[in-house]
């Protein structure tokens, strides 16, 4: 069969790929997309979106547990985990259908099947119903994402030893769960399963949970999780994970001693690796580094006309970073000169309860940079809105350059932290300084006032503490 021609062929339709495809179409290019799973990628189907649905369930369960605090008497109630998973599947399906709708709306052709690069401009799609050859007149965008990693010698069976993919689809809730890895994924699942009554232990090799976050954030989350009877063990090395009768046995080394922990299930949340196998990168000579594809500021790989975006291209493995890269790649291919992605200004969000969000440098990193800094911190206990809401755990912490008031980093633990962070994201894009924040009225009462007060605190004169 003759090759079908498009201006651009996008391989992978996760948040990077589908955004790139839509942006290309908006710029008048004809676009084909290739997907071997479901449109929307891991994010919509197995990651961000369904987990947010589960976390919302966990939050509602939490509210039911606190009903008395609000003067509400609840009769007998039951939180059915299977139904939570079913709800999350409906949410994911709806969002994935949304992507298909956007493809139709933008006249983007979707090819279901596995894409392989056969040349710099040729993608072969092996689908259920045979193969198709796509020829890209302008460029190929690779956006095949990432997949969960495991530890050496540990095989993920998605039953007893699960990855995030298994965890988000299994309708059965384990009675006890060991989460290996206390990054965003591990912490979020620990939150969900703990809310649904599982006995959860989180193991982290590094000295603290959410190790990329500011140290105060880690401390706060560890404290709050411990209060919810989640066992947090940091500085623990996992030596082996073995399925045994009625569960899994995990051998760990902590403070020089070997011990064996047992649970019904183990969740491997030790990170993700670029998903590039079988894509044809090696034959084409696309350069990679530590498994991630090397790209230019316009997302072009070492092979001209081949672009790579999203998780497979390194940096932060985050959907929003992938989307931003997708736009840059599309605009570069269309002949525009897009502003490169600012990897120093990527918000990082963990949707546990309370939420965690941050942007920029941690206090320690800012200090290590050698600049004199000013730190302003405002606790939600002093926020009228937070108290009214009954969500007073956490704080907003602003790290600024002392001389200029430049916002170097912001770290939030607390209600709607993942929404609050964007005030600072915009501010940093505009190069606003502390002065601009403190001269911006923040409505009262709002959670955002805590952000405002933290900038005041960085200048040394908060009003409400």
């Amino acid at each position, binding site marked *: 069969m003759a090759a079908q021609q498009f201006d651009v062929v996008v391989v992978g339709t996760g948040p990077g790929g589908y955004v790139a495809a839509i942006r290309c179409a908006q710029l008048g290019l004809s676009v084909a997309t290739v997907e071997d799973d479901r449109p929307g990628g891991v994010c919509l189907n197995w990651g961000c979106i369904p987990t947010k649905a589960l976390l919302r369930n966990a939050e509602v369960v939490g509210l039911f547990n606190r009903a008395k605090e609000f003067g509400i008497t609840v009769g007998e109630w039951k939180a059915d985990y299977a139904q939570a998973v079913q709800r999350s599947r409906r949410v994911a399906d709806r969002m994935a259908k949304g992507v298909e709708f956007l493809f139709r709306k933008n006249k983007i052709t979707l090819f279901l099947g596995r894409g392989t690069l056969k040349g710099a401009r040729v993608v072969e799609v092996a689908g259920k119903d045979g193969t198709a050859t796509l020829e890209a007149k302008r460029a190929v965008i690779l956006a095949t994402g990432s997949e969960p990693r495991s530890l050496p010698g540990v095989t993920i069976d998605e039953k007893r030893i699960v990855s995030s993919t298994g965890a988000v689809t299994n309708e059965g809730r384990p009675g006890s769960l060991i989460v290996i890895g206390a990054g965003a994924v591990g912490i979020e699942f620990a939150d969900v399963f703990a809310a649904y009554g599982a006995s959860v232990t989180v193991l982290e090799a590094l000295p603290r949970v959410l190790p990329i976050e500011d140290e105060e954030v880690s401390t706060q989350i560890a404290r709050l999780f411990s209060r919810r009877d989640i066992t947090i063990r940091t500085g623990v090395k996992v030596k082996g994970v073995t399925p045994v009768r009625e569960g899994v046995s995990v051998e760990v080394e902590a403070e020089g001693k070997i011990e064996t922990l047992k649970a019904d299930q183990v969740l491997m949340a030790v990170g993700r690796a670029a998903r590039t196998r079988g894509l044809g990168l090696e034959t084409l000579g696309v350069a990679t580094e530590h498994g991630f594809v090397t790209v230019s500021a316009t997302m072009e790989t070492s092979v001209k006309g081949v672009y790579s975006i999203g998780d497979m291209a390194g940096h932060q493995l985050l959907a929003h970073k992938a989307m931003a890269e997708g736009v840059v790649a599309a605009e570069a291919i269309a002949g525009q000169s897009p502003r490169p992605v600012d990897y120093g200004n990527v918000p990082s969000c963990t949707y546990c309860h309370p939420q965690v969000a941050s942007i920029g440098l941690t206090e320690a990193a800012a200090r290590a940079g050698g600049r004199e800094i000013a730190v302003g911190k405002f606790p939600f206990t002093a926020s009228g809105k937070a108290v009214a809401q009954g969500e007073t755990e956490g704080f907003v912490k602003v790290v600024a350059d002392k001389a200029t008031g*430049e916002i170097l980093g912001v770290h939030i633990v607390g209600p709607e932290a993942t929404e609050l962070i964007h005030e600072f994201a915009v501010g940093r894009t*505009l190069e*606003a300084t502390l002065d601009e924040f403190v001269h911006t009225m923040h409505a009262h009462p709002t959670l955002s006032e805590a952000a405002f007060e933290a900038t005041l605190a960085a200048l040394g004169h908060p009003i409400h503490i």
Partner: protein
Amino acid sequence: MITKVFMPKLSDAMETGKVIKWLKKEGDAVKGGDLIAEIETDKANVELEAFGAGVLRKIVIGEGGQVPVGDLIGVIADPAEDISSVAAAPAKPAAPPAAASAPAPGPKPGPASAPAPQPAAAAPAGPLPAMESYQSVPATAEVVPMAPAAAAPAAPAGGRVKASPLARKIAGQTGVDLRVVQGTGPGGRIIRRDVEAAPAAPRPAVVPAGAPQPAGAPRPTAVPARPQFVIPPRAEAEFEDVPMSPMRAAIAKRMPMSKAPVPHFYVTSEVAMDGAWSLREGLNALEGQPKISVTDLVIKAVALALLKNSGINAQLNGQAIRVHHRAHIGIAVALDQGLITPVLRDCDIKPLGRIAVESRDLADRARGGKLRAQEMTGATFSISNLGMYDVEEFSAIINPPEGAILAVGSVLQKPVVEDGEIRVGRRMKMTISCDHRVMDGAMGARFLQDVKRLLEEPLRLLV
């Protein structure tokens, strides 16, 4: 009554000033118009006049202190008055550089005057206070709306500088002039990296001339195997980095602000100077009369022609063209360390003799660093005469925010053809540089024609 003394803005380019000397001591009585201090700007030393009466109660910035324009440097008040609130409070922060020349459709107080709104200081005795004279634009100017077709200049001279808050702060701390920084942010906005990439203000750190290597590190001397051409060791360094004088730095900063954003065009014309020459010789032969220079004749001719050609006596003012109704002429004076353009005011109504006296006085005091503040700003047009350097013709760079400048060459004797015969005549070439955003070629040509006619019929300069 308390009168705060602020670091005045003595030129458009001035951002900071240094108190060289206080001419009054704390406790000295001061009346309006008294010279109270000497201030060093980037261009010259000027004497600061008081514009409030009382006693110099407090010197906030001592001699040698350098502060941004608009900072409090002293307090004048009645002897009994409590000045603690004023003297203790920090001075109003200096306005960002952009605000200094921000265009406004109409009079707008500059930052130097903004912080001094004391009602009683409104009518000072004696001469006009330094800080007000340079902004007395409204009386002399009218604002003509610009034709829409000519609107939206890429970078209006003195227009708002688009810069991020952080870029402004860093620029303020490092002395980078945002007006000369090329922005790379959205829509040409100046962002942090642009400021960081820009050359900072001149720093005193300089490699001193001297021994090329420390004494303790002699070069290993190898014995040459065979005779060869030996360059004797040369004691002097291969080069030296001479620090920019404040004036040179100001010129270096200011000229690209003109040449880059202002689209210059040039019109040259040759003037028969025979009549003017003999008139000048005649005038200079008179006893007790001030000596008239060729520049003086040109100043007078230009002043008269400017009033007739008001389109040349104009400058871009934001989205409008400001047309001046007075001829205040800046006269470029060459100095060892650069040049300065003192302003001779009201040349259109001053008789030639007065122009001669005042221009000489201005030039002398410019060379001596003794210009007053009001003598350095407010020109509506400038003249640069390099005639004394045997220059036939040249073109000058417009001194913003002015709209044009006339470059004058030597009066040369050369063969001229008149009535079909060759004879020796005196000729002078002049070239006007015009801001094409404000005026067009034919306007420049008509103006030159008028200047030429006035110089060729020089008696017109006397009536």
